[in-house]
């Protein structure tokens, strides 16, 4: 079940996006794991609520950043899906 532009990605229900006040970094927390996320990653993940497709997320961010980000968004989310941190919901 690979992620495609038409998938509706959702953050893994065991994962939680938070802000680490100690290290001053955005962080994704999940069982036995913590992944520090940069601003772009956070922007993508915040839009992963299962209602938007990858293509729609890319469009939203593309308008925000005034850039073509489709391939990068898909690659980022595919990597997160590979690590089980995002589910495809197809």
């Amino acid at each position, binding site marked *: *079940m690979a992620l495609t532009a038409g998938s509706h990605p959702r953050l*893994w*229900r*065991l994962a*939680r996006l*938070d*802000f*680490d*006040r*100690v*290290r001053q970094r955005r*962080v994704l*927390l*999940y*069982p*036995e*794991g*913590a992944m520090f996320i940069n601003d772009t990653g956070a922007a993508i993940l915040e839009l992963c609520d299962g209602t938007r497709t990858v293509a729609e997320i890319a469009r939203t961010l593309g308008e925000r950043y005034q850039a073509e980000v489709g391939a990068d968004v898909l690659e980022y989310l595919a990597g997160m*899906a590979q690590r*089980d941190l995002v*589910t*495809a919901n197809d």
Partner: protein
Amino acid sequence: MTDLTPATPPALLYPTTLLAELTYRCPLHCPYCSNPLEMSRADSELSTDDWKRVLSQARALGVLQLGLSGGEPLIRKDLEELIAHARAEGMYSTLVTSGLGLTRARAERLKAAGVDHVQVSFQDSDPVNAEKIAGIRSVKQKMEAAAVVKSLDLAFSVNVVLHRGNLDHLQEIIELAAELGADRLELANTQYYGWAMKNRTALMPTRAQVEASKPIAEAAIRKYKGKMQILYVLPDYYEKYPKPCYGGWGRVYILVTPDGRALPCHGATQISGLQFVDVRERSLEWIWRESPIFNAFRGDGWMKEPCRSCPRKDLDFGGCRCQAFALTGDATNADPVCTLVPQRALIDAALAEAGDEAEYVYRHLPAEGETVGTA
């Protein structure tokens, strides 16, 4: 041979994980428990305020992950208060529970307090064998606990410790977890600390069992990808090189025992000569940075050869100190799992015993005057 390799100064990482063992009290008697044989009783447990202070200090040190464990953490009436405190501090909390005592009312309160993740243990797919392992009627309560967790839409993991007594049921165990609707399944071949070491002969799987388990686990990981995350941890005795135990001594992990001792790992109580430190006497920051116990095996200055010059030393840190001590009498030896050292013979001798009939010595709090003793 003169050692000319300069020792690398240890990089002082900040901890990411705190395991809070809230109590040694537990309704189960699992023979694979890693708690020490000599367990303190309830009257010496840390208070609620003690724990809240530990949680705050841990957070200030950088801890993000909190495990609430024991024994059975549900036995503590202040569990909700501790979870709420962890939530306010911004930590991700995991409740590690047998499920016994996890009624709907209790689970609702824990959810309201903000627990992020509930992990329920199962001892086997076969209920008769599960209760033989646990040493007590428990399957019905666990099934009910799982249903409660699901019905409240809590993040839900199943944890199953694997050993000779249940490894043949791996397929059925996986299917049970899937039927229960677990989001995640942790399948961990037992390690040998505490009660598990005492029961090693009874728990050791055969090589045939371990080999048969691998394709089953691999197929299940693929089959359930995206639905149920499956972690499969192989037994280190059957590997050529040791595990990077807890990410290395004093690198990312802190454990606090029910009676307030801060340790780098749960096996550390069995290494003689270490000075234990109480969280009521010293700050967690001092303990992490300065205490002799946390500094005892940081970096590579303590290593002997072949570890000191080994290209794997930054991968596995020489393996487990506690295992080196327990099996060779010297915590600065390589973990004898390592096939590069002659003490590997100790591991091979233990493997040769696998399959021998043996009875469980069930986990229990020592009675007045009782000494359980070592394996």
